[in-house]
């Protein structure tokens, strides 16, 4: 009698399915363009000419800051009747540029992550240093 449940489960397995999906928001930021920014001399106008319109503008007292961002999400899922397994990995490229009251660039900080997204199963670690380093090496201006 114990054979029957196993046979039924085996019969249901072909009904399983899997999905891979990717969603990108905005173009990844260009590290080589961002390297052209010069704190103390680049103006807000030059930043916008170089990088386009920002995603967000924040007023910080007499200073302002612009945010440029892009994101990449990779989804992997495995479906059966009994159990669904899913993983969603999202990373961002972000650039914050800070301007003084004369609209001169005073500081900037950049993070590049969109190239590090991975299709994975939920038990996998998608933040391994070796993985990240290998992916960084293939992106111009990002490798350490």
């Amino acid at each position, binding site marked *: 009698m114990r054979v029957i449940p196993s046979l039924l489960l085996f019969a249901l397995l072909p009904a399983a399915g899997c999905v891979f999906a990717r969603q990108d928001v905005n173009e990844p930021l260009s590290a080589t363009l961002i390297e052209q920014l010069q704190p103390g001399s680049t103006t807000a106008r030059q930043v916008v000419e170089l990088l386009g319109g920002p995603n967000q503008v924040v007023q910080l007292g*007499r200073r302002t*800051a612009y945010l440029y961002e892009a994101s990449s999400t990779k989804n992997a899922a495995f479906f059966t009747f009994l*159990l669904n*397994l899913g993983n969603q990995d999202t990373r961002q490229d972000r650039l914050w540029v800070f301007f003084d009251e004369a609209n001169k660039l005073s*500081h900037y*900080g950049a993070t590049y992550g969109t190239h590090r997204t991975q299709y994975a199963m939920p*038990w996998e670690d998608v933040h391994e240093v070796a993985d990240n380093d290998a992916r960084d090496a293939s992106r111009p201006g990002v490798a350490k």
Partner: protein
Amino acid sequence: MKGWACWLALMCTGCITAEYSRVSVNEPIDREVLRALVPGQDDLTSCLAALGAPLDVREYQVDADRASGMALIWYWSNEAGWGAKASTVLRGVSVSLEIDWTGIDLPGCVLWFDRDLKLKFYREGMVGQLVAASRQPSAFDQ
């Protein structure tokens, strides 16, 4: 045997489904790098070089002359957990109930800078609580 039959019947109709999922958003800040920052010595330039770009920037301590400090906020998520979904049809209407046991609060860190953009202090923890605890009225509110 009856239990197996019921379970298989539910499975076949897709009424009850267990889920195991992971949601990963951005990468955690390196805790050693964060703890190497020295309030009063490090400034915005060195902090951005060490930690990269934050996810959010907020105004902090606006003075009467409109000069202000700022708060830089990082957060991330790497949560895995079980969930369950049950669905059925009641009087011709599809009804479903979904239970998700994955975390909903996000770990992170916040760095506060004074008006001269020197690092004043930083905190690690659940970022919503950190921001709420330090929230001050903005120039607009005043």
